[in-house]
């Protein structure tokens, strides 16, 4: 089934990660841990209202409190206007909105939006000072749900946002900030002539990425206008450009030092605190720490959008898909900017061949925090609708759900979701592997059901810089600019050691700050092992070229006759090891190091197939997860444990999305579950083991076949769980989360 394995010494093995000891002994320094000499503690005042005009802010009493060193409000921010700055995964962010996610200017758009901040000699004093700040609000009508916000007569959030993507420019501002559609063929007539049709309406609530480490940073602004920021993020270069943009200073005037990051999943590719801490530091003359509390994280950082989705999917009698009509409305939150709508519309049907399709997406603004990337942003929501519809069609047609999919999937050479022909994808192989897996044919117990679902994600490449240098004792130092969020130092060390033919333990990996290495994009888009990996391998190959030159010089032979074999330069029966060459570097031409810059566009999408067994308690409506299997084309696993870990972790996040997680708002527009007690993420006792099958169809464009694995696993679980519960109950699950009260209600109604 899989391509024959090349003979690798290290690729695919499971060595201990280089940063492991620090992380199991408590030594690793994360965002909230960093301490700068003379540091002040900051605190942020947040809006109690979901929508209000700020008539005035009086900070005098706070400033007078002993121990308070600085107070800032929106008035302290340079107003950027509509200027784009490069932000997250290749996308750009509008500085006007980036600024307002850090500090409200003139108006608040959601409960929890920052309106003022204080720096003081202790957090207790800073918190005390917040109570002394008087904000004069004029409360405005608010809208929370997609349904309410989409209505023609809904109170508009912004008077300068007009629906983009309409044929005619609208005259009235609207909360429908954007429409994006893909149309091909004639969906309506294809559906009208089909043998089997499913139509349904699906609803999902916003969910949070739920990283365990709250956002935190320390910032220090010097009298010469230069500053430093220490923070945990998915990309310190993106933090630098956004922070500089908001502050109106040059990027070279801010040096961002990456700290260890405690989870992100897309939610830490942007800024909320950094410019605020910088301004507090500028005013106070001292370094300032800002750290969010858990409820701040829920109230004021980006959830993944909720959605309302209408779908009609139609197939011929033999199961061939003939047409689809989909309309999706994504819960965009307070500010425009909606990559999720593009990617939702683009990937929704990207894993099938559907000749006639109309997919219309809307971004809908409302008084909740602005949506933000969450692992395969925009894809899980629409996939829930598509894969539920596939399940229904399989039932209607009496075709095995995996066979139905095999009939319709995209294969190498077909046009993919992003409009380019697909290369070496392992989608069919993944479906075959799922079908052959013992889980798929295992017997079910009473009240149990089995669901399958597929899903795809495009993955990404993007810019990365890496440097490789040799120590005089033959040790190897890799320097890169991609934060290590899930073990990527280990995969970089494996690829370097594999390429050089030396032991893994000889390689050390450093994540350098923004002043110490060239630009790298964020750790996101499943791109780091692919793109940064390419940079690391290229730099390593340049080092090998230098080593061959040095060996030629030392041996007195032509350079092109020297070969690099198993960690040594070889010429005939003469050889010089890497360590010998490193020791002689000083006399053979000087230091040995190389840097590589890449921006690869030859990434490949990933495909996953998930199998889920649930058991439903008919008395309570409780759904228990009994068994779960994740099958995925991973290209090639560099560090097998961390690839499996991505598959398991992503699946469990998706399972939480399906069963428990949701933002719950009160009628007053306030988040009602801004803590881990009420925002219920899966815990160990909710889960069985998550079985994984890594299908390896290597990407020929990567030296070790990498495709990127981090995002695909969250795409199929919503529907896999939904299909499983539907199989157990005989009732179609169209609304997430599938909570006990919801299931109980459906069961009683069906009686």
């Amino acid at each position, binding site marked *: 089934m899989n391509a024959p394995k090349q003979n690798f010494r290290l690729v695919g093995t*499971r060595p*201990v*990660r280089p*940063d*492991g*000891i620090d*992380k*199991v*002994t*408590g*030594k*690793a*320094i*994360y965002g*909230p*841990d960093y*301490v700068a000499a003379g540091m002040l503690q900051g605190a942020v005042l947040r809006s109690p209202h979901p929508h209000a005009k700020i008539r005035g802010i009086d900070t005098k009493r706070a400033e007078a409190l002993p121990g308070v060193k600085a107070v800032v409000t929106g008035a302290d921010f340079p107003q950027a206007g509509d200027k784009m700055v490069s932000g997250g995964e290749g996308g750009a962010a509008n500085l006007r909105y980036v600024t307002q996610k850090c500090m409200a200017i003139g108006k608040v758009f959601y409960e929890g939006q920052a309106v003022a901040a204080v720096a003081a000699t202790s957090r*207790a004093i800073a918190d005390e000072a917040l109570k002394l700040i008087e904000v004069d609000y004029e409360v405005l009508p608010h809208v929370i749900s997609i349904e309410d916000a989409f209505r023609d007569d809904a109170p508009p959030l912004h008077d300068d946002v007009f629906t983009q993507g309409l044929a005619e420019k609208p005259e009235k501002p609207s909360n429908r900030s954007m429409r994006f559609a893909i149309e091909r063929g004639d969906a309506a007539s294809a559906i009208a002539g089909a043998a089997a049709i499913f139509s349904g309406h699906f609803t999902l609530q916003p969910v949070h*990425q*739920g*990283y*365990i*480490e*709250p956002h935190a940073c320390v910032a220090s602004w010097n009298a010469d206008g230069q500053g430093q920021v220490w923070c945990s993020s998915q990309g310190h270069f993106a933090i630098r450009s956004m922070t500089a943009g908001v502050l109106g200073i040059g990027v070279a005037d801010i040096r961002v030092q990456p700290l*260890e*990051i*405690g*989870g*992100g*999943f897309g939610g830490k590719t942007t800024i909320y605190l950094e410019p605020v801490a910088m301004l507090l530091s500028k005013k106070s003359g001292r370094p300032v720490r800002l750290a969010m*509390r*858990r409820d701040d994280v829920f109230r004021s950082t980006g959830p993944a959008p909720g959605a309302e989705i209408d779908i009609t999917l139609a197939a011929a009698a033999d199961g061939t898909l003939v047409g689809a009509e989909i309309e999706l409305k994504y819960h965009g939150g307070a500010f425009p900017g909606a990559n999720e709508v593009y990617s939702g519309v683009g990937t929704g049907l990207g894993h099938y061949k559907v000749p006639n399709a109309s997919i219309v997406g809307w971004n809908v603004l409302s008084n909740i925090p602005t949506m933000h990337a969450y692992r395969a942003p925009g894809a899980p929501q629409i996939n829930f609708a598509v894969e539920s519809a596939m399940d229904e069609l399989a039932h209607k047609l009496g075709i095995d759900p995996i066979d139905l999919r095999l009939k319709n999937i995209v294969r190498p050479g077909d046009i993919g979701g992003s409009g380019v022909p697909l290369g070496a994808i392992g989608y069919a192989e993944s479906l075959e592997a799922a079908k052959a897996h013992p889980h798929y044919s295992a017997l079910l117990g009473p009240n149990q059901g089995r669901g399958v679902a597929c899903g795809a994600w495009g993955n990404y490449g993007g810019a990365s810089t890496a440097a490789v240098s040799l120590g005089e004792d033959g040790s190897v130092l890799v320097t890169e600019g991609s934060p290590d*969020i*899930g*073990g990527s130092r280990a995969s970089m060390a494996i690829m370097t050691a594999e390429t050089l033919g030396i032991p893994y333990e000889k390689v050390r990996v450093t994540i350098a700050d923004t002043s110490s290495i060239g630009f790298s994009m964020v750790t996101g888009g499943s791109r780091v092992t692919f793109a940064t990996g390419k940079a690391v391998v290229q730099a390593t190959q340049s080092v090998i070229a230098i080593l061959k030159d040095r060996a030629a010089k030392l041996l007195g032979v032509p350079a092109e006759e020297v070969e690099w074999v198993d960690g040594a330069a070889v010429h005939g029966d003469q050889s010089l090891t890497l360590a010998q060459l490193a020791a002689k570097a000083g006399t053979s031409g000087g230091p040995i190091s190389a840097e590589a810059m890449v921006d690869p566009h030859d990434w490949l999408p990933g495909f996953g197939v998930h199998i889920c067994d649930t058991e439903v308690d008919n008395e309570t409506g409780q759904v228990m997860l009994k068994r779960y299997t994740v099958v995925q084309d991973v290209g090639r696993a560099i*560090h097998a*444990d*961390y690839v*499996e*870990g*991505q598959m*398991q*972790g*992503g*699946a*469990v*996040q998706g399972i939480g999305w399906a069963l428990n997680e949701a933002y719950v708002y009160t009628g007053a527009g306030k988040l009602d579950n801004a*803590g*881990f*007690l009420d925002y219920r*993420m*899966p*815990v*160990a*006792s*909710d*889960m069985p*083991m*998550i079985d994984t099958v890594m299908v390896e169809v290597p990407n020929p464009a990567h030296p070790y076949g990498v495709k990127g694995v981090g995002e695909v696993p969250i795409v199929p679980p919503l529907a896999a769980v939904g299909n499983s519960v539907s199989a157990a109950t005989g009732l179609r699950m169209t609304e997430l989360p599938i909570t006990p009260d919801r299931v109980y209600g459906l069961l009683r109604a069906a009686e």
Partner: protein
Amino acid sequence: MSKLLVSTTVNGDPQQFLCDPDTTLLDALREEMGLTGSKEGCGSGDCGACTVVLDGEMVCSCLVLAPEAEGRQIATIEGVAEGSQLHPVQRKFLEHGALQCGFCTPGFIMASKALLDRNPNPSESEVRYWLAGNLCRCTGYDKIVRAVMDAAAELRQDRRTAA
């Protein structure tokens, strides 16, 4: 508000610190003693990232007031390894790749060690229920549970060899 002087024992060593009466033990460990291994994920007892052992009992240090530590024994992640010798639970976390970002890891290791100190032969569901107070958003728990079971097996083996 005047500060209180608290005398306690941290990882076997005597330790004194000053704190406000309403300071949490977690804040005292992190801010007063510089022991930032215990993490704050929630500050409300719901995530387990701040888990320490107080007089032999596993607690969320964010729910304990620092003055309550007076005269008591505190064990934190910083004291789990003996010198540079990792505890088997720490080693098994590394060998199984049972961490991704690692932010939850100190809490999980403290909780897992507390479990194995009292029950050297837990079943998978005992491990899962014991660790249900510790959130991990990255791993899906699979590798964590395997690491703890494997550490238990190794500790039982060690005990047998020692006997």
